[in-house]
């Protein structure tokens, strides 16, 4: 028997205007999509707008949804990624003349290692990455996608994804070594 609670079954009901099915999908997927957008764009308000837009597009495409063409979570992340990349490119175009605030390694180590400050620095280093590298890290490290799924979402080969990930993590290691040398084996 078909799983009546599966994403595919719920999408059929959504196409028929079943509001309860819409709510189930939102409660099932909104958290991950919002987390993805939040980590990618680094701004709660923007992440909320992006998450809302993802679901607006989901409702719009419900009638033409083809079961089996793609997992719903993959589709949702692909839409979210495109919206995040659009946002990041606009933001960087606006801040073209701005210079990001550098991390000051001379700050008190104890203070820097405080959770809030570490989070701020890691987040800053993450958002300083090129967009595609940042997206690859968020998809694989935070969202927990396997390499094949993440590559599908990004529209690249698995080898290209691995290359993006490796370059991203090497860059992060170098940037974060300045604030947490003992954590990353710095001198």
């Amino acid at each position: 028997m078909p799983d009546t609670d599966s994403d595919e079954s719920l999408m059929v009901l959504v196409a028929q205007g079943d509001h309860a099915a819409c709510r189930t999908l939102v409660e099932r997927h909104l958290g991950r999509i919002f987390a993805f957008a939040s980590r990618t764009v680094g701004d709660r308000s923007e992440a909320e707008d992006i998450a809302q837009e993802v679901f607006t597009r989901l409702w719009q495409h419900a009638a033409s949804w083809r079961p089996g063409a793609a997992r719903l979570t993959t589709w949702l992340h692909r839409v979210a990624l495109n919206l995040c990349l659009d946002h990041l490119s606009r933001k960087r175009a606006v801040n073209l003349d701005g210079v990001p605030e550098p991390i000051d390694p001379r700050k008190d180590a104890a203070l820097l290692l405080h959770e809030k400050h570490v989070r701020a620095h890691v987040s800053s280093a993450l958002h300083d990455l090129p967009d595609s590298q940042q997206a690859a890290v968020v998809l694989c490290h935070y969202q927990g996608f396997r390499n094949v799924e993440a590559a599908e979402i990004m529209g690249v080969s698995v080898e290209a994804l691995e290359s993006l990930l490796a370059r991203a993590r090497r860059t992060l290691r170098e940037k974060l070594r300045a604030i947490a040398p003992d954590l990353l084996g710095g001198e």
Partner: protein
Amino acid sequence: MPGETPMTMERLQFLLDAYGANRERWPEAERDSASALLAASEEARALVRDAARLDALLDFVSAPDPSPALIERALASAPAALPVRRRVSRRGWQRLAFAAAPLAAAAALMLWLLPSEQVDEPAPQQYAIEDLGVYTTPTDVLLDPPGFDLSDSAPSLGCERNGLGCPLPEDDDQRESHALGVLREEV
């Protein structure tokens, strides 16, 4: 095939750079050979510990949970306007039948009675002629002001029956009854 060849230190370093220390994120085909290398090499284990430190730093970047308001925003554009298809049970159909039966009987009775009343009812002007001279109440005065005929001031265009704007009878008596009939029909 990567899974059929022994894992090298260089390949392990690349996997750690790309996917971090969590073996669940590594390509499935390479997990066994990587585990064999880790079991045999202290250098390999040191590389994994180093990658785990970067993973721990990345985990400082938490993501907020979506607010209830965001859930409602995501649902705001859901296709709720479409009617929800609900299955009516056999008992529901029986209730509907019981409720509709008296209505159907009443409608049939009306259809049976209505044509006979219409056929037997005399035309309004015939009422007026028959009742001429019988009215003794003060409303007769209002209905028939002496020396005033509404049809005198109405246009004659579009006349199809004896109503306002139609040509008047020549005889005074007929003319008076005509005016009464028109007013009675209007009232």
